[in-house]
């Protein structure tokens, strides 16, 4: 009998440990699995993407730091194309703090995962540009599982991300994509048009100091990012992305499908005062760089100022 209990405990602990690892990676594939059946009969316009959307399926759709069971993959895709020599050099220079710990038994036990997911170092020893509140850039912001609001205007879509409280503009006024722009920008230059029931967005000129995702994958300023949004139910939005960047990757890189759930502001995000809407989740250097990094992040990583 004792052995049976011992086996049960071991099995459960093993399962929990496995879950821990999976959750630490944000899980792969999957994401929000289904729409809410209560919304089955609600009418919606497939061309109306307005509202607050989140990849976080927890009640309220809010992760508060991107933590949730069912956010799906937190990387662009595990199926990474081979790098060019320049791409490899840039990848090696980026030292992320997400994924499995570099050199750990856990990392070594998962050779099926791309190396980008198995090389986390304490942020005190890393090179993540967001550690210093630099803008994330479009792919990383879209992948991060905190709410995102689409404000649809006649000539553009303003996409606002709760994390960082950042805004990017997707122009839908008919202008052509800006190829070879004079100046690269943190969020690049984006144009969008409808291709049937899919909103197709082309982005160019993204500052190459941004990372593709949390795992430190690089891109060049010549990257062409295509996003394809499809509203597949009243409360479900799907996004697939393709990066074409021959300076860095030897073939186009296609993301896994990212699923978002529509949030009802009144029922979803709100402060203790009942103030609904996106939270002001700003990365302010006065808080994060001058205080947190120096007083907590760095000493936690063994770097004492």
């Amino acid at each position, binding site marked *: 009998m004792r052995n049976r209990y011992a086996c049960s405990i071991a099995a459960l602990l093993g399962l929990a440990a496995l879950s821990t690892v999976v959750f630490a990676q944000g899980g792969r594939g999957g994401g929000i699995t289904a729409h809410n059946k209560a919304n089955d009969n609600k009418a919606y316009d497939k061309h109306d993407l307005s509202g607050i959307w989140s990849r976080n399926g927890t009640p309220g759709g*809010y992760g508060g730091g991107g933590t949730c069971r069912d956010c799906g993959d937190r990387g662009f895709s595990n199926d990474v194309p081979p790098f060019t020599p320049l791409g490899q050099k840039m990848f090696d220079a980026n030292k992320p703090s997400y994924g499995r710990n570099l050199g750990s038994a856990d990392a070594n036990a998962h050779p099926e995962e791309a190396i980008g997911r198995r090389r986390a170092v304490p942020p005190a020893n890393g090179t993540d540009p967001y550690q210093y509140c630099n803008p994330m850039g479009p792919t990383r912001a879209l992948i991060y599982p905190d709410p995102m609001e689409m404000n649809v205007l006649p000539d553009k879509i303003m996409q606002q991300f709760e994390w960082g409280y950042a805004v990017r503009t997707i122009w839908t006024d008919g202008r052509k994509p800006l190829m070879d722009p004079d100046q690269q920008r943190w969020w690049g230059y984006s144009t969008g048009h409808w291709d049937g029931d899919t909103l197709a967005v082309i982005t160019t000129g993204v500052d190459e100091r941004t990372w593709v995702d949390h795992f430190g994958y690089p891109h060049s300023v010549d990257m062409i990012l295509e996003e394809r949004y499809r509203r597949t139910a009243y409360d479900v939005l799907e996004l697939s992305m393709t990066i074409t960047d021959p300076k860095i990757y030897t073939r186009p890189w296609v993301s896994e499908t990212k699923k978002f759930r529509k949030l009802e502001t009144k029922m979803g995000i709100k402060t203790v005062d009942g103030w609904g809407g996106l939270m002001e989740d700003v*990365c302010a250097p006065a808080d994060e760089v001058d205080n947190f990094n120096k007083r907590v992040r760095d000493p936690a990583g063994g770097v004492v100022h």
Partner: protein
Amino acid sequence: MKIKLLGLIVSSVTLLLVSIPAFAHHGTGVSYDQSKSYTIAGTVTITEFRYANPHPQLYFDVKDKDGKVTHWSGEIAPNAAQLQQIGWGKKRSEAALAPGTEVTLTIAPSRAGTPVGLINKIVNAKGEDVLGLGGNAFGPVPGEAEKGKQTKQ
């Protein structure tokens, strides 16, 4: 016997689940060792609490048996936006963790061996859970705090 074993299973699974290094804003989860989480009681005095991004911070003094005081820095996993969602606004949090307050802390220490830790649980002198961590550094699921569920990952 069965009940004790069930309790052990539940608490063990819970412990493992809360060890998820999901520090999304700054990726500091990698800096702490959850397998060495422990509780400090009776010797912890808060010196400062910051309700700020990327994660709220608790600074506190720990006195050892010889009376020597060590100053610690602690990180709390739910960020301010998430604490707002579960009813722990800034004013309430700061009042509960005012300088001079004595608390019992459960922390996962830094892997570097420095006096820095991830705070998994805060209990005040009345035995009340503070910030809704309840042994889960990621806090309860928004909207379910009132039900006493603390399963946020």
